């Protein structure tokens, strides 16, 4: 939708020199560009400076590495959740997949070989879970929330079978990797950079364009030749894969597994996406914003800890922040629609 604003040179019916035409297009695009991811980064930076004021040394490489490590699981979860939300869906099952992943990790990671092998198995299970969600949503046309609510319950149940209570362990080297660094930059920050790079590549693929198309107008996308079912299956598979990936980082961070770990991360995964400026109604958003959303949630917890408030405040604050972000997103969108004369 955004691109089409500038792509109609004949709209004004007036010939312009190419260079001025390009300038006009860029101007039109910047006027209609989504400001929400940028707003999320501003919010992140404000919180970062507040936290730095409370906790001197926050801006050192080491501290930023810890911040990145704490955010990693949520950011990966948000990457997948964001892709599904772009299709105007929602994936509640990320909680179940994450819980199952951590329990498998905590019971089956014993050495380098088993860690590698079972990591692949966890990622495969996550992807398969996503494919099941995608087929049910796409092929059988069931409501995304009811399908993923059901599979969330199923995967939570399986996780309880694998490990009935929180515990288990992962090899020390595996858990320590997240605190390591390469070339003076913490590993966790490298992973975040890599994820953003993967996203910037993915965004330009045909699959991504189809996902955006389905989210902005499913019927129009269908008429334009987008095959709905395979695209939805891909979107949910990406979410499942990401939830499994998040489980690997979660197990790394906690050095254990927990069959109930996922339930508390479903809301933050949606909140990170929404704070990051992705529209819940699909078709608009970017992982660049989601990273800021995830960092915001982590920093909020850090600030709450730094001012000596009970950690339970984060649960309450996450819920309020999610609702506030939805309202702010809708408000900003309405404002922008008015400014650009009704375009997207």
């Amino acid at each position, binding site marked *: 939708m955004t691109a089409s604003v500038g792509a109609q040179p004949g709209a004004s019916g007036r010939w312009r020199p190419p260079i001025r035409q390009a300038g006009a297009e860029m101007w039109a695009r910047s006027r209609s560009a989504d400001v929400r991811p940028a707003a999320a980064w501003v919010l992140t930076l404000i919180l970062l400076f507040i936290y730095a004021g409370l906790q001197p040394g926050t801006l050192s490489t080491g501290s930023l590495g810890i911040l990145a490590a704490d955010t990693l699981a949520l950011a990966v979860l948000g990457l997948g959740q964001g892709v599904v939300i772009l299709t105007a869906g929602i994936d509640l099952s990320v909680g179940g997949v994450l819980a199952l992943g951590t329990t498998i990790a905590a019971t089956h990671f014993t050495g380098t070989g088993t860690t590698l092998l079972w990591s692949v198995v966890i990622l495969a299970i996550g992807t398969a879970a996503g494919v099941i969600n995608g087929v049910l949503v796409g092929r059988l046309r*069931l*409501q995304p929330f009811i399908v993923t*609510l059901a599979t969330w319950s199923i995967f939570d149940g399986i996780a309880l079978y694998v490990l009935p209570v929180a515990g288990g362990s992962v090899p020390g080297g595996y858990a320590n990797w997240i605190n390591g660094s390469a070339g003076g930059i913490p590993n966790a920050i490298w992973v975040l950079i890599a994820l953003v790079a993967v996203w910037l590549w993915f965004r330009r693929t045909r699959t991504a364009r189809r996902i955006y198309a389905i989210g902005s107008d499913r019927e129009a996308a269908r008429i334009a030749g987008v095959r709905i079912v395979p695209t939805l299956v891909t979107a949910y598979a990406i979410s499942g894969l990401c939830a499994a990936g998040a489980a690997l980082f979660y197990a790394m961070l906690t050095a254990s597994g927990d069959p109930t770990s996922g339930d508390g991360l479903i*809301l933050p995964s949606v909140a990170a996406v929404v704070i990051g400026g992705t529209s819940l109604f699909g078709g608009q958003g970017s992982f660049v914003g989601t990273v800021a959303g995830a960092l915001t949630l982590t920093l909020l917890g850090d600030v709450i800890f730094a001012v000596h408030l009970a950690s339970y405040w984060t649960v*309450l604050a996450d*819920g309020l922040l999610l*609702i506030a972000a939805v309202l702010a997103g809708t408000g900003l969108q309405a404002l922008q629609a008015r400014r650009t004369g009704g375009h997207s």
Partner: protein
Amino acid sequence: MTTVTRTLSRNRAILFGYLLVVILAIAGEIVSSGFLRIDHIDELIITGGFIALVGVGQTFVILTGGVDLSIPWVLNTSAVFLTLWAKGDSARMAWIVPVLLLGAAGIGAINGIGVAFLRIPPIIMTLGMSSVVEGGLLLVTNGGSGQNAPGAAVYLATHRWGPLPVLAVLWLAVLIAATVILSATPFGRRLYATGLNRRVAAFAGVNIQQVTVTVYVISGVAAALAGIALAGYVGQSYLGMGDPYLFASVAAVAIGGTSILGGSGNFVGTTAGALALAVLAALLPILGLQPAALEIVYGCVILGAVTLSSARKGQQDRTD
């Protein structure tokens, strides 16, 4: 005769729900004799009663095309505050119960206002509210567990009036009230109209905002009531006691043939769903399955029910 067959065919999904209850109960009796002993049936009815209590709210909300994910923590909060304030003294319940129901109504009203006026998607609004309520409860209890339930709550959950458990009488009252409200009042008609098509309902003069806020209030109050009864049954309150009731409430509604998209279904169906889930929950340990299996069963049941109902709807669309 024709009206009878027409009514039957229109309510095939609900009949299927009750058939499921009978089949499961007979299966239970076959694998474990005594499954249908009167005292065990009592137990099944009590287990189902809690699901039915949360299910009535979920039914009203889903009928309008929404969903309430905040039920578990509203239930848990009501249970914890009951035990916290009563300190074992039943007389105090005279003011505690109204306060709890009012508080839950307030939470439901905020949910409804968010959905109806601020246009926040129901999943997001109630998920956010759930987290706010959970956080608030954790702050109050500081993460510790609650205290013992007062005697009156225990009486409500475990005593019998003649042949019937008190909870069964409450369930029956809720069943009658919900059925009358849904099928014989203007509010019921407005509710179905809202669920079928909001825009058309609004054009037809239905105050969809009022309907939406009301159903979330009903859901909040029902969850609080379930919390009070559950605290009585367990004898105390603890954090996480509401957790199973999110999946259970949605599963009961889905088995009962209520459309997840809203606009069709009723609480007679959800009652069948609650009974079926109670029988299933009792069957699993007999079959040597861990409690974890219950969550898997809930998920499969929800998937199966919504798949069936969407297939049925497709068939209807073709024949109409």
